[in-house]
């Protein structure tokens, strides 16, 4: 009976093998290593953990990390929307090239981006030079960190908004126009609401990536404690001092905030799919 039933459900072969292998490989490469983080925390005393994460220098590094990531994600939402709009709606020479280069931050090693951005925004750099006489330093300040994070996060916003904009039904837009709405009003009350879930998803993805980013930031940050020291760098420093518990405590706070972001992303995607189905 059971044999018949399972045969009817699973016509295709290989379920046991592929599922078993997937779970096995997932466990040894991802789950067991990540579990070590929690076990390490459980073994450490709460005093030690609390001491680490309430250290003013650590708190300052969280501030720098989260604030820079937030600013960068906001700027990416604005310019990512503009870029997606221009790429979907307009025709201009070189459009294909621009569309292709959007993915550059996914393909370019972060360390390369880091040294290039530092060279550009240092006081003697191509752009740093323009701002130096005004007394504005970009590299080795939080502005520099934010610029690196803008670089890293941009494709996340463009690539989540672009397909939604492509699928957008232009008849609704045209209906709004026939009813006499001007362009800005049509955009704000017809188009923007449709794009909002994608914009939030893009924001969350860019923000989450920026929190953990290391390679592109360390070169341009200057790494001054309390000012431009990011949390991933502090983990690195603690490890070099063999302070495993300290490194783990800092990592855990970052990891938990990333998980929260991941949950938010999944919820937003679930909601937008749900909306699409119910329509």
């Amino acid at each position: 009976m059971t044999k018949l039933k399972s045969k009817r459900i699973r016509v295709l072969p290989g379920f046991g093998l592929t599922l078993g292998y997937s779970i096995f490989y997932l466990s040894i490469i991802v789950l067991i290593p990540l579990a070590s983080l929690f076990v390490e925390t459980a073994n450490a005393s709460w005093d030690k953990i609390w001491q680490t994460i309430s250290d003013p220098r650590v708190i300052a590094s969280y501030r720098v990390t989260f604030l820079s990531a937030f600013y960068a994600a906001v700027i990416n939402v604005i310019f990512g929307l503009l870029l997606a709009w221009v790429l979907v709606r307009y025709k201009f020479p070189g459009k294909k090239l621009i569309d292709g280069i959007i993915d550059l931050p996914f393909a370019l090693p972060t360390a390369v981006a880091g040294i290039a951005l530092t060279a550009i925004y240092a006081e003697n750099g191509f752009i740093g030079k323009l701002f130096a006489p005004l007394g504005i330093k970009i590299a080795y300040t939080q502005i520099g960190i934010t610029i690196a994070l803008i670089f890293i996060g941009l494709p996340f916003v463009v690539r989540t908004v672009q397909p939604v904009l492509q699928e957008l039904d232009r008849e609704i837009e045209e209906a709004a126009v026939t009813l006499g709405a001007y362009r800005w009003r049509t955009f704000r009350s017809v188009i923007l609401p449709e794009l909002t879930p994608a914009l939030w998803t893009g924001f969350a993805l860019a923000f989450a990536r920026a929190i953990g980013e290391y390679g592109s930031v360390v070169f341009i940050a200057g790494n001054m404690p309390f000012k431009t020291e990011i949390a991933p760098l502090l983990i690195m420093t603690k490890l070099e001092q063999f302070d495993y518990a300290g490194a783990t405590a800092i990592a855990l706070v970052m990891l938990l905030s990333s998980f929260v972001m991941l949950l938010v992303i999944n919820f937003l995607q679930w909601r937008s799919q749900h909306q699409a189905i119910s329509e």
Partner: protein
Amino acid sequence: MAGSTTMNGLAGSSEVRPRHATESLPFRWLWITIALLFVGLILILPLVTVIYEGLKKGVELYLTALIEPDAISALKLTLLVALIAVPLNTLFGVAAAWTITKFQFRGKNILLTLIDLPFAVSPVISGLVYVLLFGARGWFGPFLEANHLQIVYAVPGIILATTFVTFPFVARELIPLMQAQGKQEEEAAASLGAKGWHIFWHVTMPNIKWGLLYGIILCNARAIGEFGAVSVVSGHIRGETNTLPLHIEILYNEYQFSAAFAVASLLVALALVTLVAKSLIERRQQRAAARNRMN
């Protein structure tokens, strides 16, 4: 052909659209200009800078930086790491995509979320977990020491950390693709008596080969360029545990800027090849999709 666009309900060219249905010409150019300036400043300028800084002190110095023994050994190690990490993750990606898209089972969504985990983890943390496991004071530390084995601060650690960081790429690319294609073709082949491997190779593979290739290319680009995770588990020993990105960091910190940018230009080339391959594959997929619609 000509009538098909109107039949699909796609509003045709802009002439038939009423006024205000798109932005006025000056605004259109304003937005395009701002967008292009932004792309130029954020994305293109760094690329140009790498090439310019690499060649600033002459071609000779540029070439010397590339053929110097430390650079060559870094290149070799980087390729070795990618050569192990990418096939491992490809095998996993195919297996996971098969199990997720061809079968119904409980916990599928949990599995999907877990596959994405490495994307949500900071590269530094990806390295940290292996130090916790295999470091001198880690779980397996005493065992490894007793047997004179070294994983972190050595090549195996670099391979493990890279595999962790590039874990989701192939699976992420294949799952939506195979989901969209359904399983009727495979089921038809199975009902005709085809065996598992045969079905995969002759029925599934032709449909997913471009998506698979794209996943592999992305996975490879990240494997070669990974910095944070590798930095944690590498001992930073020149000529031994330095990958290309780590080699760039060392050169840069020693103020050998031209050499650092020269080596970086290799990775820029890799990034550009990745982007070109991506757009070629996408064009192929679009053409294939168009063909399918016609049939």
